[in-house]
């Protein structure tokens, strides 16, 4: 039995023993790979929530895609019991994602907390997401505990990182805790600081029950499993509760703590964080940001969350229309777990019925797509991603039709013609780039090439520069980050926030395969960049489409004018020379794989296009 953990697993936990002043709600925020999940593993081990073994690697990363990509996508919650100066404390840890695309998850986690551990890599120092995450926490007025991780690394320079923290965040260097999450060094100090420096939640057990739904999952058997933070009062099994958003009443079937697995306790009290199952069967019933209260004691709803703003849109269609229903239910279930995805029905002549989905960024979209395929075994066609453009209409008829002068276009196929528009607008973002100063020149020319305007530049220490640029969103959405990483040998980091709209000279560009337009690839481009991006798309499409038995013309066109062309030559010979000696197993495997792949091809005329080609086409090759 571990000394920090006073209860054996099977003991019923009496949560009434933890009044609000013995509770701390906190999350860990960090730039990707700075060791957030590793620290979470150590905290879980030290408080006995999980057994201490060699295998505890990123226990809170439950999704297959998270383990595969080494990123956290969904915030996960774990309650820890901690003994400090003779007192038992209940520490609720909420693990957060580390990628720019998922800042919405971060801000939601923050709303259930009173403090954060801000982790910075002792070698890499402050990175773009460190800055972004710091401001999220700072604006929410949370207690911030800076933690410098990976001090065991050979090149660790904690002093330098401390002075960066002092300079950029105005936090005294004495407040930093130096740790190695990997080795467990000083992690005990982190737990003490959580108790000492983070205020307890302001919640009274005497108030009426009031809880915020800050996350939810869907379970095939029990329906919706909601994660809640109790802001007042108490709730127990059998209570009748109301959703403020829908006004519907439910009976609490099950509730308890997440450690990180569900651990039923029968009750939850003010200040605590846990899960609740209350017979919500429809995925739409558990609205994230909703307030729950007892039927007989109505309360004023909590402010909830601003809906996440989708910045990247793409069409998703079933490979085969017979799979429409299945795909619909898969999308519904996934969007319940990820309320930041917006969903609109859409249909197209070429692709049939489907949806137009809005995502926070391209990684978010890829992860969503991967989860659809892995967790729901769905096979989908994804169109080229686009950003939400706006058009100011000049035609009175159209204005009447749309009910407003300004419309937002999330589907390039519906981009209105220049003749009915007085002005197009494109979304802008304020990007933050942190990099060693030796890369400044390269980065500046990359930004210039992406139509960006420099706003600000600051040395955060004698070698590292923080630059701010105003970018058109469509210039950074697909591949900017990859490119930035590769030209800075991985040293630069990037994050962005929305910065409104600006007028732009936009045009619609078609991609044709043997003269047939490919609906998935219609893109909106800036006029000045039409030729270069058309040419680049043709070149990349040429590389993504396998040679076939006939020649394929790949063209980019504005209206009826072709602006770029590539040719995929026909196969003249495609037959394996030697096929005996008896070993045909390898050859059969290869052919079977091709036959399987053939089923997943999208046919444009008679041209077979692999379905990942549509996204690959937009990514620039790493050179």
């Amino acid at each position, binding site marked *: 039995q571990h000394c920090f953990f006073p209860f054996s697993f099977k003991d019923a936990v009496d949560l009434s023993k933890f009044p609000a002043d013995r509770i701390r709600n906190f999350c860990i925020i960090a730039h990707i790979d700075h060791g957030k999940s590793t620290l979470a593993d150590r905290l879980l081990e030290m408080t006995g929530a999980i057994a201490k073994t060699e295998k505890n690697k990123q226990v809170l990363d439950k999704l297959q895609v998270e383990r595969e990509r080494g990123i956290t996508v969904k915030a996960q919650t774990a309650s820890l019991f901690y003994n400090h100066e003779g007192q038992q404390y209940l520490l609720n840890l909420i693990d957060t994602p580390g990628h720019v695309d998922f800042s919405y998850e971060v801000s939601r986690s923050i709303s259930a907390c009173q403090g954060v551990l801000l982790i910075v890599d002792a070698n890499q120092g402050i990175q773009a997401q460190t800055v972004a995450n710091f401001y999220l926490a700072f604006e929410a007025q949370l207690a911030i505990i800076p933690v410098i991780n990976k001090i065991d690394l050979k090149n660790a320079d904690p002093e330098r990182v401390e002075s960066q923290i002092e300079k950029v965040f105005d936090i005294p260097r004495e407040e930093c805790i130096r740790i190695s999450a990997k080795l467990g060094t000083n992690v005990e100090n982190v737990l003490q600081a959580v108790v000492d420096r983070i205020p307890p939640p302001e919640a009274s057990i005497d108030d009426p029950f009031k809880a915020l739904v800050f996350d939810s999952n869907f379970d095939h058997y029990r329906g919706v499993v909601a994660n809640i933070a109790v802001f007042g009062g108490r709730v127990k099994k059998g209570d009748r509760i109301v959703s403020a958003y829908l006004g519907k009443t439910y009976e609490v079937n099950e509730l308890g703590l997440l450690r990180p697995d569900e651990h039923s306790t029968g009750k939850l009290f003010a200040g605590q964080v846990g899960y609740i199952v209350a017979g919500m069967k429809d995925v739409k019933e558990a609205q994230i940001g909703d307030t729950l209260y007892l039927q007989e004691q109505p309360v004023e709803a909590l402010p909830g969350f601003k809906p996440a703003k989708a910045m990247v849109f793409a069409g998703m269609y079933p490979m085969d229309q017979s799979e429409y229903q299945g795909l619909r239910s898969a999308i519904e279930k996934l969007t319940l777990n990820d309320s930041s995805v917006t969903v609109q029905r859409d249909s197209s002549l070429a692709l049939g019925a489907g949806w137009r989905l809005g995502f926070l960024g391209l990684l978010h979209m890829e992860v969503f797509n991967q989860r659809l395929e892995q967790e729901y075994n769905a096979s989908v066609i994804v169109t080229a991603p686009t950003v939400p453009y706006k058009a100011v209409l000049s035609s009175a008829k159209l204005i009447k039709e749309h009910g407003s002068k300004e419309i937002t276009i999330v589907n390039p196929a519906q981009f209105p013609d220049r003749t009915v528009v007085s002005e197009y607008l494109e979304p802008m973002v304020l990007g933050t780039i942190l990099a060693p100063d030796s890369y400044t020149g390269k980065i500046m020319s990359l930004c210039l090439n992406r139509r960006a305007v420099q706003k600000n530049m600051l040395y955060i220490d004698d070698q590292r520069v923080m630059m701010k640029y105003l970018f058109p969103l469509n210039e950074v959405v697909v591949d900017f980050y990859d490119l930035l990483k590769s030209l800075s040998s991985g040293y630069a980091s990037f994050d962005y926030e929305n910065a409104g709209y600006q007028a732009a000279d936009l045009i619609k560009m078609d991609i044709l395969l043997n003269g047939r337009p490919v609906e998935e690839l219609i893109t909106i481009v800036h006029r000045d960049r039409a030729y270069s991006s058309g040419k680049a798309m043709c070149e990349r499409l040429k590389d993504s489409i396998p040679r*076939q*038995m006939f020649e394929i013309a790949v063209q980019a066109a504005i209206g009826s004018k072709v602006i770029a062309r590539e040719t995929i*030559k026909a*196969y*003249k*010979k*495609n*037959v*394996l*020379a*030697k*096929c*005996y*000696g*008896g*070993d*045909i*197993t390898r*050859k*059969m495997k290869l*052919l*079977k794989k*091709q*036959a399987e*792949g*053939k*089923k997943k091809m999208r046919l444009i005329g*008679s041209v077979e296009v692999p379905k990942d080609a549509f996204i690959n086409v937009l990514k620039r090759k790493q050179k």
Partner: protein
Amino acid sequence: MMSLRAARRALSPGVRRFSDTSGGEIVEDVSERTGCAQLTTQASLYVHWPYCLRRCSYCNFNKYISRDNNDHMMTECLQKETETLLQLSQVSCVTSVFFGGGTPSLAHPSTVAAVLETVSGQASLSEKAEVTLEVNPTPVGMSKLEDFCRAGVNRFSIGVQSLQDDDLKILGRDHSSRQALQTIEEARRLCPGRVSVDVMFGRPKQSVESWENELSKLLRVCDDHMSLYQLTLERGTQLFKQVQGGEVTVPAEDVTAEMYQCARRTLHQHGFLQYEVSNFAKHKAVSHHNMSYWKGRQYIGVGPGAHGRFVLPGEGGVAREARTQTLEPDVWMREVQQRGHGTRRRIQLNHLELLEEVLVMGMRMTEGINHKHWELFSPQLSLREVFGRSTDVQELLQSGRLILDDRGLRCSWDGLALLDSMLPALLVELERQISQRLQRDHHTDGQTKKTSNPR
């Protein structure tokens, strides 16, 4: 069974020599007359000799530069495994034997004699059955040809690869073009009409023109059979690294395509009929051993890394198995000594998998798959039933690259060069039809006794 066993001829190596081998009449093609029963009572035999003197720069085949001299043990093990696998397969007739490698011409002729003797001890091996040996055209190889004939070999396949000495060096071959020509001559003297020449195109720095010249030169000296292989860059080979590193360049795809077409035309003009993607024969001198692979017949693979496809009634099996022998010679020998054979992997082929192999192999032949040949393996679904309805297949038929008519299914002249682009569509359709058929059978006549599928 007893009578067949009794009818087996016990051969002494000295006797198994042919003097009357004019033309290609040794074993006539039994394909269309081969009934369902023969599918499992006959097999061809492949024997793998794993050793080479040196490593060719393009080769990733299972071969080993030995060595301590353990030829004797290798011979015993090849015999032992031949015996075991023939017993397990219970075939009564071995239709052909092929000694491949590695470099089997490095083996002692007595090894060949011993293996053939073992075969004759287990099943009938007709005096006329084709027995091929792969030969490296080195002086040593050449000097042994006569002894190999005495041991029972009646067909030579000579790995000429190129007539350019520079190229032979790049390829890492251990012979010269002059030695190759001499070896062909000697082989033709010993086995007139039964000598095959292996040549490789798509070699580093090769041009269409130089290839044409080389072919003309070869046509003047060769016998009645030629195999043309395009050099394929295999991962892990020295040549692969050289090409990756930019030290060596190989001709572009379009150039090798042109080389292939040009060779097909030239050989045709000289009376060589193409009967398979890479194989050409005059006077019907086709390789019967290889034909039996393409016709989907049983074969037994003996030796390190050899592959086989056969039913094992000796173990109560009914479905054909894909068998792979242990790769590494020393390990393989230990296994053979311990349990009689060195089979490392056994996979039972289901009905669909068997048909897939029949399709993929059969379509490599210019004559393709005729209706009877298909029916042998698929009595319930004819070629037309499987492929006649698919729109993908219709497109291939309309493009003139694929032909489905009263004879059967085959590639056109143009289509053969693009076979691998057409096979995925055919495989998709085959799978769809077979699975639909299974569902229908399941729904409509669950009562009816299942017709046994051929193996």
